[in-house]
């Protein structure tokens, strides 16, 4: 028990949000939207593009088609296309959807990317083993901001 607590602390120190970032449990949603930046540092759309297409990061294209990324192979269609997302949603709404889509779409299949508790049998990444200690959210606060910055470029 003692050992586990120590481990938990060690991990949470590792996964600690960068200076000034809002912790996952402290994010406040208003009708699904998140008003302010999670980090205070402007998002970088180019980084966001990487997060969206990389299998090891957001892998958003597993479920969404984005025509502006023709080089990204095998885009899935479980979710709607993200073309024109910035015409349909405000920055605040997009931040809320990416951080925790279930606050906007009740019961959606879309994973919650900025959350680190409330799971059933969470694993240690894709090893199939039980997670130990405190979990890191799927994306960091800055990655969420980067993704939002990229989504804001998707206008039709």
């Amino acid at each position, binding site marked *: 028990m003692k050992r586990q607590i120590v481990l938990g602390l060690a991990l949470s120190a590792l996964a600690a949000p960068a200076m000034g970032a809002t912790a996952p449990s402290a994010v406040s949603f208003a009708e699904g939207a998140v008003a302010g930046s999670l980090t205070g540092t402007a998002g970088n759309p180019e980084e966001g593009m990487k997060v969206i297409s990389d299998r090891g990061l957001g892998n958003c294209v597993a479920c969404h088609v984005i025509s502006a990324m023709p080089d990204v192979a095998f885009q899935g269609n479980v979710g709607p296309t993200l073309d024109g997302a910035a015409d349909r949603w405000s920055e605040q709404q997009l931040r809320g959807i990416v951080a925790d889509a279930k606050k906007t779409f009740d019961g959606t*299949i879309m*994973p919650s990317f900025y959350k680190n508790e409330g799971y*059933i049998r969470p694993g240690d990444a894709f090893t199939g083993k039980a997670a130990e200690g405190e979990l890191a959210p799927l994306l960091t606060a800055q990655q969420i901001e980067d993704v939002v910055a990229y989504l804001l470029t998707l206008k039709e």
Partner: protein
Amino acid sequence: MKMRILAGTCALAAFALSGLSAVADPADDTLVVNGEIQMITHTDKAPDYIDGLSEQYSGWHFREADTRVMQADDFDNPGMLGVEAATEVWNAVDGSEGKACASCHEAPESMAGVRTQMPSFNEAKGEMYTMEMYINECRAERMGAEAWDWDSSDMVNMTALISSVSRGMPMNVAVDGPAQSYWEKGKEMYYTRYGQLELACSNCHEDNYGNFIRADHLSQGQINGFPVYRLKDAKLSSIHNRFKGCIRDTRGETFKPGSPELIALELYVASRGNGLSVEGPSVRN
């Protein structure tokens, strides 16, 4: 070979042009194995006790044309090598009692129909038994031989042999009587959103079959084709191994093959496929 190249190009072209919808549906195709075994790979109606499915599709419909073709002829189906290996084992004496499977069961064909009812409640043992468990019961208690590990090649090959002699017959597991409590538990698991991605079996295989998740064309996750020969792994894979992998892919803590949880889940998932033909060993990517 030629065919495979063609099929590949068509699929990719359709992908690029259509924005996916054209290739997102289950293939409109029928499966006849060796020119004689007619397979029911699609029905217009799932059993009444399955709320979430109106029609049923075998996973076969969701694979590429070249993979589908492989399953239509035993000479092309690499899973049949496992069946052959198991046929030798079937006839080989093993264990302290000096017996082979054949000593009690004669030819493997005597097992026709068995796979359609698996898993089933074992009255003598008072619990739900999968095919693996019945096989090990024979080995340990009747042959005096060592039990096989769940995912050992001996075990998976033997389940392939026993499935192969039921090919074409409709799955028909019992869900009532002593099976009911297992079925309820399996159903609850099917709708539980596991792991850090919070995904239930139903999210992928009920709500989204026919859609693509990245490069994967989602099927209904039926188990009538098991064991399946997975081209990716170049070997036969058990039902529980597949379940384990799907839960791992939710960034979840999996369950062990042979665990009470996966046995209950197997019964429930089998019942979702009641009416589809036994296909095992089938071919998947």
